[in-house]
């Protein structure tokens, strides 16, 4: 079914929705500013509104409709009870500026989450302010910069970033007034210690690293890496995007990481919502604690309070206390596992990734040998010989009922396919996915590649012309 755009629905808006409130006069002063032309928002009746958006929803693939193995995105199941509790009136309909004594319940949940994130990361001081991972990177770098400045090291403005890093890393560094130097990965896809040493100097502010890295490999030299950076006078920023591989099993703080952002929409299963909202709390060690953003949630006696005054703080990075609704869900996810089961998140996530790797490794090129952690990296090298590229494989997976893996990232290999199954997928689903991948490999070898180039054929739309979209951008519907 072709659902038209709202603006194409063939009628005037029906009678206005009945609304509560004061149906009275507005002030004469305000009337002078009345809008002259209607905004032209096409109101639909409630039946039409619901049908429009329900139909749109039917064109989406989500975790609830199928496997979603996007590498580095940690698309795990989002518990329904979390959606229930976040809508409790005392959590949904509260104002950030209402008196604190009338909001202790929500503050308790936030305070508890801070504690838990500190435990999980091994970095005991946590801010919930950052609204997303990249925002956490900015906040973390601000703290690092402040700490270095306090040491009188304000010349340290260089941030080392492996070439396998997420693109947000260099972008965040730039936003924080620092510049980045790219570290070339070693032959095993990991940080090359020599390369690292070669770039460490007295201008180095920090190394930003993701561990496990975006090739799914654990940086086994982590202790030495951190030591080298610290010895050189820098700090180590951890990109927590891949924390799912470690939760309950090992802690970045114990390894020498100074500062880590935690994508709660990944590790702690708050829904991705088609692109957000997420949450990017940052956990830091004692060195960086003085610089945490404000407001901070602190306990004074039995009372929790939002503290804004702090001389050493890097200041606020958001205009509100944070993505509270997202954090309520994260607290609920951790509560469900608890002390007893939390490590099973990492265990099953890593088990699943290695299982997929081992089922596919003979038919797809594996650029880096060895165990993977929560995600595994393949390339299209074998399929290239048959004229098939990563993009074709991805689109063919759609026809076979799966969301594709992350493609062409990390940039350190050609034709990357990064697969992250997460802990919430069954062996049955993994097998079905691997069977589909093997079917594609078979088709390539058999030279039966037409369906691969044409794919996808089954969904509501076929391959979309991105060049056309970018060349002459149409971002709004004309009136």
């Amino acid at each position: 079914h072709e659902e038209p755009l709202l603006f194409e629905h063939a009628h005037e808006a029906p009678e206005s929705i009945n609304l509560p409130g004061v149906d009275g006069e507005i002030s004469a002063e305000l009337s002078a500013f009345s809008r002259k032309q209607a905004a032209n928002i096409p109101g639909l009746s409630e039946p039409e509104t619901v049908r429009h958006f329900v139909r749109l929803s039917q064109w989406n693939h989500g975790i609830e409709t199928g496997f979603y193995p996007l590498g580095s995105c940690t698309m795990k199941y989002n518990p329904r009870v979390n959606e229930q509790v976040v809508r409790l009136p005392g959590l949904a309909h509260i104002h950030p500026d209402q008196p604190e004594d009338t909001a202790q319940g929500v503050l308790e949940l936030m305070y508890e989450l801070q504690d838990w994130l500190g435990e999980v990361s091994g970095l005991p001081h946590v801010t919930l302010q950052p609204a997303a991972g990249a925002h956490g990177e900015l906040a973390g770098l601000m703290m690092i910069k402040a700490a270095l400045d306090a040491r009188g090291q304000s010349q340290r403005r260089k941030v080392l970033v492996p070439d396998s890093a997420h693109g947000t890393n260099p972008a965040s560094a730039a936003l924080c007034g620092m510049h980045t130097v790219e570290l070339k990965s070693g032959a095993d896809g990991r940080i090359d210690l020599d390369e690292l040493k070669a770039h460490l100097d007295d201008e180095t502010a920090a190394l930003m690293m993701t561990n496990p890295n975006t090739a799914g490999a654990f940086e086994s030299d982590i202790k030495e890496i951190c030591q080298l950076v610290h010895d050189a006078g820098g700090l180590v920023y951890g990109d927590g995007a891949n924390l799912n591989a470690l939760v309950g099993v090992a802690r970045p703080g114990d390894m020498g990481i100074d500062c880590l952002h935690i994508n709660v929409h990944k590790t702690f299963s708050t829904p991705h919502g088609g692109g957000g909202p997420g949450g990017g709390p940052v956990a830091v060690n004692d060195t960086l604690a003085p610089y945490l953003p404000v407001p901070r949630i602190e306990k004074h006696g039995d009372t929790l309070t939002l503290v804004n005054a702090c001389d050493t703080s890097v200041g606020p990075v958001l205009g509100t206390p944070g993505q509270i609704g997202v954090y309520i869900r994260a607290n609920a996810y951790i509560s469900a596992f608890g002390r007893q089961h939390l490590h099973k998140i990492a265990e099953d996530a890593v088990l699943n990734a290695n299982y997929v790797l081992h089922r596919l490794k003979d038919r797809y090129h594996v650029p880096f040998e060895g165990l993977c952690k929560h995600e595994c990296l393949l390339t299209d090298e074998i399929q290239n010989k048959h004229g098939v590229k990563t993009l074709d494989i991805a689109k063919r997976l759609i026809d076979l009922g799966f969301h594709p893996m992350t493609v062409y990232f990390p940039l350190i290999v050609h034709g990357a396919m990064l697969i992250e199954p997460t802990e919430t997928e069954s062996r049955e689903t993994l097998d079905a996915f691997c069977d589909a991948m093997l079917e594609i490999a078979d088709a390539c070898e058999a030279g039966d590649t037409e369906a691969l180039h044409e794919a996808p054929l089954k969904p509501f739309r076929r391959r979309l012309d991105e060049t056309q979209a970018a060349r002459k951008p149409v971002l709004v519907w004309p009136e």
Partner: protein
Amino acid sequence: MRFLPHTDTDRTAMLETIGVSNMAELFSDIPGEFHIEKGSLEIADALSEAGIVRKFTKASEKNRNATNSRYFLGGGTYHHFVPAVVDYIISRGEFLTAYTPYQPEISQGTLQALFEFQTMIARLTGMDVSNASMYEAATATAEAALMARRVTRKSRVVMAGSVNPRYRSVTANYLSRLDGEYAEVDMGRHGTDLDKVIAAIDEKTACVIVQYPDFYGSVYDLAPLRAACDAARCLMVVAFSDISAFALIESPGAMGADIAVGSGQSLGIPMGFGGPHLGLFTCKQKYLRQMPGRVCGLTSDADGKRGFVLTLSTREQHIRREKATSNICSNQGLMCTAAATYMTQMGDAGLGTVARHSAAALHSLVSQLPGHVTAAHGAHYNETVLSFADQQARDRFLKAAQESDIFAGIPLEQIETAADGRHLLVATTEMVEEADINDYLAILEVAK
């Protein structure tokens, strides 16, 4: 664990496939010294689902909320009505549990909703284009300043002192890590003095940021500023906190804004103690390629059918890395779908009613104030500052109101640190009924 599908039999079989003998071997690449003992973290014991419901219900009941209290609180977060359909739509797994629509063929639902969102936000703000959201209003304001610097290749940012102090402090904070001057213009009163703002513009100025309606709720004509910006070849950036205003009063676009940013929380999103809210970012067409954040654009598929994709990604960090227009990646996607659903359900007429009722409630309140309380002068939309003789008088009233389940306003100094303690920032929406106003006024009399 109910979220984990494997049985131990599955696990054993899978370990065998992999060729390792136990789970620990899968973690053998992590140096032994970093392995922690299972169950040793100081985290609460696992709860059953019923236990989770009880825990959060208990926490919820400790907070007073808008189903059992009357809210006259604003300052960037507003208690507007949220129709049930909005929550239903964003609760559907197809919207809720999807990722960023990087595979457009199976994400047309999210994408078309984003395109509709962008269109409606552009129309409501009177701007040419909108992006697909920022985190919230303060960071959107900071990003607007950065964008203006890119567009103008100048670096000084002038900020009116009547912009929400939180937007100001976040913007100042962002800018302070970069080169370039940042100047705040003290207004000297609870309103906006454009003359002072205009006087602060110089040739190095990349943009002037004002709020409209301003932090104190006051509405004023931006034409003089537009002229001054033209003269100085800098951008006029307009911030806003309650977008419902623009269903009633002239839009930032009509007032000449080059960039308009603010909060979309009023569009069907509960207050939620401050988040997740919805940051909005709009600008003129000509500045499009310097805009931060994701955008959704129209295109066609291999069969020539209309479809939508995320576009202009060459501005973004996964392509441009440190030269990206912003570092924003995850945004507030689901809140765009919420806002699109809300606006569709409301339409011009419904949005207009929301705005009229919000403004009428304030007018009703202000025009009946007793003599010992004064309200800021001039045109106000749904927010104003009430001033008392002294802090004692104000706090006496606040306490009395709270005892009658009324949150009567935000002590101004709670947001504007420098303010003295006798002011109250008061906001109204269509959720305020005439009876609530009468109660409010009665308490004002009693708690004099």
